């Protein structure tokens, strides 16, 4: 308790407070701009933190991380251009809502769901970090393979379009993920002698292309008729009824996000995808997802922010980064001569609680920022498209180029944009493709690693209880609908009377 108080006392120190606020605001802005991700912003700020004391330095980076994950949702909702990969799932329902003139409601929900997810994961982190670190430590290649199989089992159902088309889209995503040098054989695949493709196709240009450029092309197809602009609706925040409806979704997604975040190297993007899919699975309006359901925003947003808290667990407790941004923050600890691990927990608990406090404050700040900003930003959805979309295009090109300062990435973005536009016209959604790309290398590499570890005997997966658990979940996810449907049909004659009474 004493350590917690000492930790939180950094919030009184004006210097620390100032850099945490700075980190939060920079985080929201950077997160919102497509192509600029929080991991990049943290990496660029890192060397400058050597001029600060360790506690405010790490606090600033942690606050930036939290806020950046939220920031991505703003552009995802307003212009269908997810500012960062974790916000991809937010665009599925957020953008249709904005188009319907409910941008404020969508943005407000994103802010609230993000904050609840982020706070819950922080509480879990404070209470149980060392215990949770043990879970993340027990995750090896076989467990990751099983988790990835579980993720892939969602492909058919992740968007409301035809399951067959979803599977084709997912397979296409997996194919994209095979480009580059294979981890276990060192063989170059589909690189065609382009050195930029050697480490695989970058995810961000694909994301920008599939979402923003594809939408831009679709918009170019629409004649700009004078729309009825009821600005009052657009800046309206979500109502209490909305919150009552999404409450279970937020809780579920916070749990999923915290868990996925704790797993080393699995970050917010996967958490958001799974959070979205589970929100859809358990929702009464599951079939309306993708057309602007508010649960479709709460699901991924609570999950991806919960994953930021979760990913700090293995980072601090084991020195194994829980996500790409956490890996950079790990570098930040090292710059200040701080070694993560059990040592940190035993000898420097104050620092630990300061990081919690900073992330906590960041959540509070971007809640305010998000709610006030929602009324302001939502006006973007009222800008006539003839002005809006050319600006978006410029933003996209800069974003795609900026990641690696490479024109190849701009080409990838354009190709992905045309492909996405064309695929959309024929009923293929972006969701399964993104899911395939995210899981592709994980499923392949973890299987290859597992097989070497198991001396090429696949039965030895049965020695790993966690893996078996995920295989069962995957089976459940694939078969629960037909099985439940069958059970219901079987039981209907007997339970018809009680149902009729309802």
């Amino acid at each position, binding site marked *: 308790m004493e350590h917690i108080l000492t930790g939180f006392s950094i919030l009184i120190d004006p*210097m620390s407070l100032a850099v945490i606020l700075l980190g939060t605001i920079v985080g929201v802005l950077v997160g919102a701009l497509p192509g600029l991700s929080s991991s990049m912003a943290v990496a660029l700020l*890192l060397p400058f933190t*050597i001029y600060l004391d360790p506690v405010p330095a790490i606090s600033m980076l942690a606050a930036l991380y939290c806020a950046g994950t939220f920031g991505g949702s703003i552009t995802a909702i307003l212009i269908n251009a997810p500012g960062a990969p974790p916000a991809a799932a937010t665009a599925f329902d957020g953008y249709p809502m904005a188009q319907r003139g409910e941008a404020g409601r969508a943005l407000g929900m994103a802010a609230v769901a993000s904050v609840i997810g982020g706070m819950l994961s922080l509480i879990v982190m404070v209470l149980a970090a060392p215990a949770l670190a043990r879970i993340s430590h027990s995750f090896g290649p076989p467990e990751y393979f099983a988790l990835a199989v579980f993720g892939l089992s969602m492909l058919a159902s992740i968007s409301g379009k035809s399951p067959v088309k979803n599977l084709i889209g997912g397979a296409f995503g997996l194919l994209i993920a095979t480009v580059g040098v294979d981890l276990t054989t*060192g063989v170059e695949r589909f690189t065609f002698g382009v050195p*930029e493709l050697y480490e695989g196709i970058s995810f961000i240009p694909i994301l920008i292309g599939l979402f923003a450029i594809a939408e831009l092309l679709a918009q170019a197809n629409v004649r700009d008729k004078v729309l009825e602009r009821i600005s009052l609706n657009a800046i309206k925040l979500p109502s209490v009824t909305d919150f009552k409806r999404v409450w279970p979704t937020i809780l579920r997604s916070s749990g999923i996000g915290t868990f996925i975040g704790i797993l080393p190297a699995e970050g917010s993007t996967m958490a958001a995808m799974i959070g979205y899919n589970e929100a859809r699975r358990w929702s009464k309006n599951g079939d309306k997802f993708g057309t602007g359901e508010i649960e479709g925003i709460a699901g991924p947003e609570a999950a991806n922010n919960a994953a930021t808290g979760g990913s700090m667990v293995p980072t601090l407790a084991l020195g194994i980064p829980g996500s790409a941004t956490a890996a*950079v923050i790990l570098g930040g600890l090292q*710059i200040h001569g701080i*070694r993560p691990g059990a040592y940190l927990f035993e000898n420097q608990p104050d620092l630990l609680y300061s990081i919690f406090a900073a992330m906590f404050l960041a959540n509070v700040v971007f809640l305010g920022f998000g709610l006030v900003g929602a009324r302001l930003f939502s006006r973007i959805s009222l800008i006539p498209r003839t002005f809006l979309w050319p600006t978006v295009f410029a933003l996209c090109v800069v974003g795609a180029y900026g990641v*690696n300062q490479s024109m190849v990435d701009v080409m990838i973005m354009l190709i992905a944009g045309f492909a996405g536009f064309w695929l959309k016209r024929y009923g293929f959604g972006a969701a399964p493709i993104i899911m395939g790309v995210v899981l592709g290398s994980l499923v392949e590499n973890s299987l290859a690693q597992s097989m070497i*570890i198991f001396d090429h005997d696949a039965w030895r997966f049965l020695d790993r209880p966690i893996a078996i658990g995920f295989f069962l979940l995957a089976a459940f996810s694939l078969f629960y609908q037909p099985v439940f449907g069958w059970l219901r049909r079987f039981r209907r004659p007997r339970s018809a009377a009680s149902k009729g009474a309802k």
Partner: protein
Amino acid sequence: MRHWMKSGLLMTSLATAALAFSATSGADDFPSEPIEIVVHTSPGGGTDTTARIVALATQAQLGTNVYVQNKKGGGGSVAMSYVKSKPADGYTVMAITPTHLFTMLRGNSPLDIDDIQGLARATDDPIIVMVRGDSRYKSIHDLIEAGRAGVIKWGGTQIGGVDHIAAMSFAKAAGMKVSFVPFDSGAEFAAALSRGDIDAAGLNISETRDQIAAGDFRPLAVMADDRMKALPDVPTLSEKGLDISFSTVRGYVVLKSTPKARQEILEKAMLKGMESDRYQNYLKGIGLDETSIEGAADWDSQIRRMYKAGQETMQDLGLAQ
């Protein structure tokens, strides 16, 4: 913050002074323009972070802006072709790692070993043969025996990277059979080792100091010429008659045709910058010490030795041309 602004002000005034000076004195006023350090990865990660700190430390010495340019791709070949496209005037410095050397060995690389000249080394982290604390391999001898009788599952990073080449060079020299399991990062295969998924791994002290102290990991031998200060009781492979020396090194090079005088100015500034408390503190944070820092002569010869050692192994593995 104030500190930062102050040094920022100082920097700008120094830079302006340098600029003013260059306008009057003409020819050899190197450096009068910003210097870029080309890194082969995205921002974040050890090579990039080290380069950024070295850049800050060096610019304090030179009074001119030093910044990091990320050119990711092709195992360093995108960075190398970028450097090749720049004039050899000392304003473009490249950060290199063993990865660059092995990319050269694969062939079709934009630069070759003879095109570069070492300036200074920033980190040197020898690879240590490590097993789990409760492993039945008590010494490097036990491990070699087991590898001769059966197969050792060995963890490292990607195929063709320094971990892989080091493991395979060791296996060949000792006559062992090794089944190599590649992972994405050192932290991942360190975790795999402690779970018992793999039998042995080549790890750095920076990643494992706490586990060694706690007895979770047992270091069997160091792939270096001399014993490490941090592990005085652990033998080197060369003591055991195996001439295997591999290390996760990061250092800086320029194109060979860069004027000698400019190379010396850069070397001196980098070495002096790395003496600063900030850089030393960073080294300490990543588990290293001042022995990591080395000047042009030793660093350059280390690059060439590692290139040669990699060449033989890669030819055996069918990776080199």
